[in-house]
């Protein structure tokens, strides 16, 4: 695999978020879900942002989503992305509710539209890291 020059995820609390990345490597999408109020939330944090209980579990989700909003990048903050411009930097809303930052891939940027249906696409960018991206459904 050619050397990957873009920034890889750097974890503030690896013990908290590693299950997400391990699952991504297996091409499975997990989300935190509160065992008390049953709500999914994103991003992972110590306590459920609704009820502040710490009883949440990593729960598999469908990978189905809609494009909440996006912007087509011409001037990236990190130079390693410059070869890819324009690309879609996106907020994706999962069928189960949570919204996450990602990219829309496998799609001409002219065809990227708000509210379009999406499906998760796992991108094995290095031997150790798989990023969670989305393609048109």
């Amino acid at each position, binding site marked *: 695999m050619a050397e990957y020059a873009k920034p890889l995820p750097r974890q503030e609390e690896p013990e908290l978020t590693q299950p997400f990345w391990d699952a991504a490597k297996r091409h499975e999408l997990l989300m935190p879900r509160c065992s008390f109020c049953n709500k999914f939330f994103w991003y992972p944090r110590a306590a459920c942002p609704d009820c502040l209980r710490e009883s949440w579990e990593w729960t598999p989700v469908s990978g189905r989503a809609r494009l909440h909003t996006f912007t087509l990048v011409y001037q990236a903050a*990190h130079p390693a992305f410059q070869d890819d411009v324009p690309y879609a*930097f996106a907020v994706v809303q999962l069928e189960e509710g949570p919204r996450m*930052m990602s990219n829309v891939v496998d799609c001409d940027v002219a065809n990227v539209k*708000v509210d379009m249906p999406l499906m998760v696409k796992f991108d094995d960018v290095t031997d150790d890291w798989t990023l969670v991206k989305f393609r048109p459904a």
Partner: protein
Amino acid sequence: MSLRGKAAIVGFYETPSRKEFPDRSTNSLLAEVARGAIRDAGLRKEDIDGLINAEGTNSLTLAEVLGIRPRYNTSVTSHGASGATSIVVAAQAVSAGLANYVLCIFGGSQPRSSSRLRAVSQAERPSGPASRATEWEVPYGPVIAMNGWYGLIKQRHMFEYGTTMEQFAKCAADERFNGAANPNGIWYEQPVTVQDVLDSRFTNDPIHLLEGVMPVSGAHAVIVTTAERARALPNPPAYILGMGGPATNHDVIWQEDDITVTPVTMSAPNALQMAEMNIRDVQFAQFYDCYTVLVMACLEDAGIVPKGEIGPFYESTDTTFKGEFPINTDGGQIGAGQTAGLGGGFRHVVEATRQVMGRAENRQVEKSDVCLVNG
């Protein structure tokens, strides 16, 4: 106890906004505006017993640099809203008797284009503290500065409400018209048209370069005191009639429940209620404007127009200082520059004061009694 009219701004001063002040430090600029604001208020430095500044510099350190012995000091931590928030804090402090004359001071001297270089170096830096951003945002390629986040809001606003590129561009062109009349602004005598904005390049579609701000060096300061003390001073006081906030829903934009809705939905009604006013009583507005979409969304959330109707409002309304509803009469950040050290938002406080005191000279608005300021 309501703080309605209990405090007032009694003096102000600002430096010109420049791309850089090569031979002057941040402390040099801050000393100039401190001296200028104190003199403008008709006070002596020994009178100043309160100091409020931006996060990033400890207010005790700044007190030492300026030779002020404050009874009350704090630094505010509300990002771009820190400047307006400083007035809320100062009004509380003087009303509670914790200080008599509070100096609110923001600004900085930085090398030309340093903000872009800093953003790039932060993105490239392999070490440094990990954060929510380094795990969940950076791997997907954010845009320079804050352009990406506001691109996400603008895209959604266009989708939900049909707001057009031309309507956003009109906001930038009106602010640049105002900025062209502001000798302290970075774009003095350099107006642009709607077409110029539309023709400027995308940093990221749908954000045009001219819908954002030029980072500038400079500084701004005001003095806040009680209404009673204000009446004994030379300037006509700019009374603080109502305040709301600081208010926030989330620290990052993509965590908002509704990405086009701002915390102004909380802060504006609070401020108007304290002022015992209706939004229709507001004669002009100084609103935080890092990007066109933000000033526009905030004006909707303040109730100037119903949600989603700010595009047609700009299309049909002259918002220049000559117009029927003036907005950001000094040019705002888009038309005059985003001052370093969180001074960008504070320029709205200074300009509101200048207009209310009737001292805006060539850009004085016709009705200048009631201004709504959003940090």
